[in-house]
């Protein structure tokens, strides 16, 4: 049984009651909502005759369905328009702040809450979206929920939950140049598989994690769910506090010092007990690329796609399915695999540091012939910052499209999608069959810098070589 961990402390602080059947009622400090998983929840509370208990702790934005080429209203897709109109009505009827299009604060829900300073250490954060784990980067306990649970949080700002176990993933060493947080998390999932996290909260710790900036920590926690863990977190430290300082919703003035003291005390104690521990060495990690249909099917860019006999028996049926679906040859190199579409964006890698890393690779280059490459900032703020630095011009000059903020080609709920058997180099988080909008479309997950490298060369390429020999 874990004790003295941040998870335990935050859990205790938010415990409301023990319920008849053994679950705990847990208070939710921040409830984030968006247009896809909330309409049925609002309908349900209306039917029950209930209101929103804490509208001031509920924050909405629109991200999944928004087009990224033109965001003029009404959207050309009437279903998308209806979803946004429903969210707008639900928010205004219930007194909920909606950071809508053109507000300067709109964007992917997991990008905007941190950048506005809404996400803070020690909070419980829930959202009808599995990548809510992202907010754990701040030392919050953050997890995705389904629509029935969105209904519950709207109605009573709490949830029936079972306590998770806590596993510490200790990352030693340092990432090498050209190797990013995305590579680290893909490597962790490759090592641990996509199921090991079920039933656990993952605490990411160790020198390699301490060295990461907040945006990189968000990338790691974002993909905790791909390793099966509903919740991942990093203990708050000086990096966390300096990121939060002066953000719109962060405590100010005298409150700031007190908040920092409270936040600091929440970090896992040095004698904390974990239910499990895993050790990862960051220094040996290469840029990592997925070759299959789960985020666990990844390899270093300098490796060969594994042959069946190199794969544990239990994972072979899935590997065979992946060979068939991806049409990639076991035993062949992943480097050199030609791609059709290059996508930089998403709640995993759509932040300013991601765009900068990709821009450093794209600078002065030209997108290879026949390749569709596009950059989708994670939020209006990210877009503004990037444009102020001239990144939009840099990308455009290199042949990338520069789009408006949204989830875009991370999933297929807006016009951005793969066609037929197209294969993408993508900075998003899921390479599931059909994820990017074509039932037969294929996805190779990688870091934004690696996506930029693929765009310039037309195929999967080792970004380290391009950084060493800039064009």
């Amino acid at each position: 049984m874990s004790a003295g961990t941040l998870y335990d402390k935050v859990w205790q602080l938010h415990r409301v009651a023990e319920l008849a059947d053994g679950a705990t009622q847990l208070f939710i400090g921040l409830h984030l909502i968006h247009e896809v998983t909330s309409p049925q929840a609002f309908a349900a509370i209306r039917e029950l005759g209930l209101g929103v208990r804490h509208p001031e702790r509920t924050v909405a934005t629109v991200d999944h369905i928004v087009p990224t080429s033109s965001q003029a209203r009404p959207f050309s897709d009437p279903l998308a328009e209806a979803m946004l109109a429903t969210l707008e009505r639900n928010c205004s009827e219930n007194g909920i702040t909606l950071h809508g299009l053109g507000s300067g604060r709109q964007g992917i829900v997991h990008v905007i809450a941190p950048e506005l300073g809404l996400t803070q250490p020690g909070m419980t954060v829930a959202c009808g979206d599995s990548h809510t784990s992202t907010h754990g980067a701040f030392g919050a306990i953050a997890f995705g929920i389904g629509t029935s649970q969105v209904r519950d949080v709207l109605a009573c700002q709490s949830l029936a939950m079972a306590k998770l176990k806590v596993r510490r993933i200790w990352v030693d060493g340092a990432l090498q140049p050209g190797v990013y947080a995305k590579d680290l998390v893909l490597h962790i999932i490759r090592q641990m598989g996509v199921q090991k996290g079920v039933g656990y909260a993952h605490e990411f710790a160790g020198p390699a994690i301490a060295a990461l900036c907040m945006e990189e920590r968000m990338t790691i926690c974002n993909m905790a769910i791909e390793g099966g863990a509903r919740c991942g977190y990093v203990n708050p430290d000086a990096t966390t506090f300096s990121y939060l300082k002066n953000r719109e919703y962060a405590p100010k003035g005298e409150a700031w010092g007190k908040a920092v003291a409270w936040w600091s005390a929440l970090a896992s104690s040095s004698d904390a007990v974990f239910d499990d521990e895993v050790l990862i060495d960051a220094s040996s990690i290469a840029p990592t690329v997925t070759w299959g249909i789960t985020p666990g099917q990844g390899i270093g860019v300098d490796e060969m796609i594994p042959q069946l006999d190199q794969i544990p028996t239990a994972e072979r049926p899935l590997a065979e399915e992946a060979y068939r679906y991806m049409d990639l040859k076991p035993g062949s190199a992943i480097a050199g695999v030609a791609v059709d579409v290059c996508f930089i964006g998403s709640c995993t890698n759509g932040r300013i540091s991601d765009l900068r890393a990709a821009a450093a690779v794209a600078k002065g280059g030209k997108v290879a012939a026949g390749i569709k490459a596009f950059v989708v900032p994670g939020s209006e703020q990210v877009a503004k910052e990037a444009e102020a630095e001239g990144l939009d011009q840099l990308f455009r000059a290199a042949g990338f499209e520069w789009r408006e903020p949204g989830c875009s080609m991370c999933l297929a709920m807006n016009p951005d999608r793969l066609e037929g058997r197209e294969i993408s180099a993508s900075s998003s988080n899921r390479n599931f069959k059909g994820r990017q909008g074509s039932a037969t479309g294929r996805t190779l997950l990688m870091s934004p810098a690696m996506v930029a490298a693929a765009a310039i060369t037309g195929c999967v390429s080792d970004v380290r070589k391009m950084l060493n020999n800039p064009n």
Partner: protein
Amino acid sequence: MDNIFPSGAITKISGKAVVLSGNDIDTDRIIPARFLKCVSFDGLGAQVFADDRKELNKGAAGFHPFDQPEKQGAKFLFTNQNFGCGSSREHAPQALMRWGIRAVLAESFAEIFFGNCLALGIPCVQVKQTLILELQALANEATNPNFVLDLASSSISSEGCSWAIELEKGIQQMFLSGRWDGTAQLVANNEALNKTAAALPYLNNLWA
């Protein structure tokens, strides 16, 4: 097909079983994202596994399990490890429920999916690998047998055979008592909610 959604106490479920073999079947496959463009769950039943079904049905391998004529009206889904991983979309269990599924037996489940099913009154029962393989083989036999899941006695039976299953006590109680839909219970704890909220520094500016 009687498709009355679960309500109240759930003690027994009986019906045919459809088999989906494979691990890590994600919610994008259960319900592709384009079907999430809706403000109600009503139309989802027909879309369950839409892309997998379309893909398989055009090949020579025969129908997708959800399209096999003899499986129409089935109440059980028997599948393998980490079922329902990926996206939190409740549209996935909603689509399964609206197609007719009333219980899922698997080697293991992704957590959010498990919780979503619970909130809809769809038991997700975790069983050992040997048992799920046995049940899958039986369900695939030409006789297409009937199964009975008895939540009170923690067993699944078919054709005179019965197997013990392990149910987490609290969850078993939720189904048997009808408390699986817990909103009322949560709302009732009004005072405790106020107390917890009042003690949280970030809610009350206790640090100001």
